[in-house]
């Protein structure tokens, strides 16, 4: 076969190319022809198709995501905003923190271990590319029904993959989520988050500037991994086998990634890099076009010099390969030798594959012939943008009208007791220790809080004890009932979780997991959720710094629940002041902060007791969330509370269970006036937390709440070795523990 060079393409305008098979629409193909003034070469088509896929171009979501910028709250903390590999936030003392959450949903369904493992690897490289040392990871996960046979295939594989990669990489896993729901049966959600730390002056950006600067590809050799993966990933014709004979599955090599991290940080430390980009989805196509597009000039790349693992790869395949553990750096000629020397020290293969030109084209050569000649912006940043039609689904009204308040409630103390046991032993509420104990949470020696605390917290300066905290949350059931409110509830919960540990929330990242954007109902959910999140971030003063969108999470006509997963990052000046969830001291007073209303729509109770999803989710009051956060932070700073636990799914019953078991102490609870025991225990009203107050601090604490207008209700005391709701029931901790801890091991053994 003759090589499809640029020249050849110009001479053979009528050659038919498989653009439709690569997932391009007729008008998209026409646009490419229009941009180039001729038909694209095979290599150009490969690049455009992969870069214009939903996954890379955000073509369906872009118009909605703009709100995150437009409605962004004024924040002095924001150093780098949306659009880069990850946003960067100032946390004081000259430190900056970058974090981002990303999805690896489809690959993890096909091959759970490798899909999840490479998901961790990918997000870590994003963080590294910003100039930061990765310091922690988290993993929000969602699976089908806990007792479904396929969950037994997917979950252990995903967990082993996240652990296998993250543990070997040496990054502590400081939190995440595990949620089961039949709606995720064929579409598990595997989101991964990474946090990185750097000094302000170390921030790096993905841009290629400086004519004559060298383009260096370093890390693993390029193989046939995941070719077509990206377009397959996000295209409507999702198919496990992939288009070519090449494997759609990428295999991760965490050891290679560890070397890449240390090598890259040493390169940063010597300031040898002008611009840098990780290779993730769309591989070299993405890295070269984005670097060139963001830079000042053009770029010329010689594909023959790319080190290959498989010599039979075609140039198109080299451009599309998603081989993991690779990075691409722009380096001044005078620094090249030193750059290569450091790579050699770390046994990392590094090759100059091209240079920055003074033109404005991305030119790629193969065997001396030009096979790509494109304006890089048109590939990387000027892909198609769709205003997809959206409409509130007609079933939404009926769903919301199906009020959970009508469901029969436990009537006696004995029934309440049974309900608590049933709740805490349900897969969603039960202890996730079986999973989290497979993750190293100690490595790097800076982990202050990890699972099962409200947020993960790491120390970032050993001298000053400055630290950061991160929590991720999402509740697809709430979002299904009302996507706007659901997204805000996810934000509010993550915000509250960060504040509960004593950290001040600063910034947000998100992973928006939805069904097909071609379904107007799904698109409406997406539009509502993004609007809710953007409005919420504005109200809370926490800008979205970056995130990820995963669409087409559906099987046939059935989409997953709309699942916006929200990560909030906060800063704490002195990690010694962190607040854990454990009730550690007998005699301390328990206060419930916030208002408890009869809110059961989408609740864990409705699901467990009645398999019910209907009504409205709990109401959101973001001013209240802010106030609650301020109180929790002040109380932590001034030593007024010894424990705090936010209330979310499962309500107070769940929070008390966790705090009691964690501390090994019981609680004696009195139902306050104006509330019934059932509502007290199981309502999921937002904006609440339970705190343990030393007696000596009670006055100071209640005065502060009173002065600031935050309802604080004394509900009991840390005492004994049972959860004792006076006048209703007593539940020995041993029994509670068995219920809480036995479920997941039992299911997965």
């Amino acid at each position: 076969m003759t090589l499809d060079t640029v020249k050849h393409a110009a001479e053979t305008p009528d050659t038919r190319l498989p653009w439709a098979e690569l997932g391009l629409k007729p008008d998209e193909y026409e646009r490419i022809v229009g941009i180039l003034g001729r038909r694209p070469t095979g290599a150009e088509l490969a690049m455009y198709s992969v870069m214009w896929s939903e996954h890379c171009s955000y073509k369906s979501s872009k118009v909605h995501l703009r709100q995150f910028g437009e409605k962004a709250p004024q924040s002095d903390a924001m150093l780098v905003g949306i659009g880069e590999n990850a946003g960067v936030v100032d946390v004081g003392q000259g430190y900056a923190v970058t974090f981002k959450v990303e999805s690896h949903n489809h690959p993890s369904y096909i091959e759970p271990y490798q899909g999840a493992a490479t998901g961790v690897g990918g997000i870590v490289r994003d963080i590294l590319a910003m100039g930061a040392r990765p310091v922690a990871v988290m993993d929000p996960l969602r699976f089908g029904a806990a007792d479904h046979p396929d969950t037994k295939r997917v979950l252990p594989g995903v967990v082993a993959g996240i652990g296998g990669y993250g543990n070997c990489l040496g990054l502590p896993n400081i939190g995440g989520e595990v949620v089961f729901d039949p709606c995720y049966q064929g579409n598990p959600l595997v989101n991964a988050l990474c946090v990185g730390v750097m000094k302000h002056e170390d921030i790096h950006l993905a841009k290629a500037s400086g004519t004559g600067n060298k383009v260096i590809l370093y890390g693993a050799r390029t193989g046939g991994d995941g070719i077509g993966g990206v377009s397959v990933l996000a295209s409507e014709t999702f198919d496990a086998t992939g288009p070519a004979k090449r494997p759609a599955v990428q295999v991760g090599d965490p050891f290679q990634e560890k070397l890449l991290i240390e090598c890259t940080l040493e390169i940063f430390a010597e300031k040898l890099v002008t611009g840098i980009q990780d290779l993730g989805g769309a591989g070299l196509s993405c890295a070269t076009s984005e670097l060139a597009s963001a830079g000042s000039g053009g770029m010329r790349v010689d594909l023959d010099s790319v080190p290959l693992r498989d010599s039979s790869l075609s140039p198109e395949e080299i451009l599309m390969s998603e081989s993991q553990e690779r990075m691409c750096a722009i380096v001044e000629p005078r620094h090249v030798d030193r750059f290569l020397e450091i790579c050699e020290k770390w046994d990392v293969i590094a090759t100059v594959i091209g240079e920055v030109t003074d033109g404005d084209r991305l030119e790629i050569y193969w065997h001396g012939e030009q096979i790509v000649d494109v304006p890089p912006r048109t590939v990387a940043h000027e892909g198609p943008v769709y205003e997809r039609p959206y409409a509130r689904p007609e079933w939404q009204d009926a769903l919301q009208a199906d009020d959970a308040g009508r469901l029969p409630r436990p009537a006696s103390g004995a029934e309440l007791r049974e309900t608590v046991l049933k709740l805490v032993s349900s897969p969603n509420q039960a202890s996730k220790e079986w999973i989290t104990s497979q993750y190293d949470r100690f490595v790097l020696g800076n982990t202050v809080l990890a699972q099962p605390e409200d947020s993960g917290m790491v120390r970032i300066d050993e001298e000053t004890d400055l630290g950061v905290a991160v929590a991720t949350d999402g509740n697809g059931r709430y979002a299904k009932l009302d996507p706007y409110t659901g997204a805000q509830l996810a934000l509010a919960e993550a915000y509250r979780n960060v504040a509960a540990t004593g950290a001040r929330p600063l910034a947000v990242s998100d992973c928006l997991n939805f069904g097909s954007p071609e379904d107007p109902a799904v698109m409406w959910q997406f539009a509502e959720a993004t609007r809710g999140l953007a409005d919420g971030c504005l109200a809370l003063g926490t800008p979205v710094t970056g995130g990820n969108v995963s669409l087409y999470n559906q099987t046939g006509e059935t989409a997953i629940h709309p699942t916006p997963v929200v990560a909030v990052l906060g800063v704490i000046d002195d990690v010694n002041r962190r607040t854990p969830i454990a009730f550690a001291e007998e005699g301390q007073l328990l206060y419930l902060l916030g208002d408890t209303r009869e809110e059961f729509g989408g609740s864990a109770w409705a699901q467990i007791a009645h398999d019910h999803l209907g009504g409205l989710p709990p109401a959101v009051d973001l001013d209240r969330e802010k106030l609650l956060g301020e109180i929790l932070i002040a109380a932590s700073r001034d030593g007024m509370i010894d424990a705090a636990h936010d209330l979310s799914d499962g309500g107070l019953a769940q929070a008390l269970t966790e705090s009691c078991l964690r501390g090994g102490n019981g609680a004696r609870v009195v139902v306050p006036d104006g509330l019934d025991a059932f509502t007290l225990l199981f309502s999921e009203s937002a904006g609440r937390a339970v705190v343990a107050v030393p007696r000596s601090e009670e006055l100071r604490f209640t005065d502060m709440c009173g002065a600031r207008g935050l309802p604080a209700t004394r509900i009991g005391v840390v005492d004994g070795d049972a959860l004792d709701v006076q006048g209703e029931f007593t539940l020995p901790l041993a029994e509670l523990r068995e219920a809480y801890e036995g479920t997941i091991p039992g299911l997965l053994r």
Partner: protein
Amino acid sequence: MTRTSPASTPDAAPTGGLAGARIGVITFPGSLDDRDALRAVRLAGAEAVPLWHRDPDLQRVDAVVLPGGFSYGDYLRAGAISRFSPIMDMVIEGAKEGLPVLGICNGFQVLTETHLLPGAMLRNNHLHFICRDQRLRVENADTAWTNAYTAGQEISIPLKNIDGRYTADERTLDELEAEGRVVFRYVDGNPNGSLRDIAGITNAAGNVVGLMPHPEHAVEPLVGTGGTDGLGFFASILKKLVSA
């Protein structure tokens, strides 16, 4: 070119030790807990010396720590590839002449692969990675790395590994027991199927000690599990070096 230390961060730079003792921590490709071990050495008051696996000499250190991690990805077998690092020849030679060597987790695995310590490490019997706080009994408080404890004392330090099941043939096990070379035993439940609940052992001379749990993660009240039971390892070696 000057040798760049792997952990070229300020916190890893050598610092003057109180006792003037220099304790080296070797970084292999894929070592993970090297910075933590350096920190633990510093907190104990010694001078922490980062060593790189390709170093031509041991820089006159008085003792060596082989840290935890997944050196060479633990591909092939845990510790199998790093044992052939150039620096290990010097460690083996030194150990035979009495140089105190502590192998933590992956470091323990390297020590068994070099046969400085007998036996081998296998996949945990439940086949999972396990990360948890682990109770241990100090069985031998006479080694270079345990003399700050008392025999029979129980301590809690983190455990985190997937290849932590200690194995040796019966004769070797009997010999270890008879000679008091079982240094640590798991209590409150064996986490991985290690024979005779063995968590750590020593060579006959007592200068080479290996264990699976991580003392370097239990040296500060704030981080990790919040305990400081691991400090004794580093206090022990200082005591040993100063009194020597």
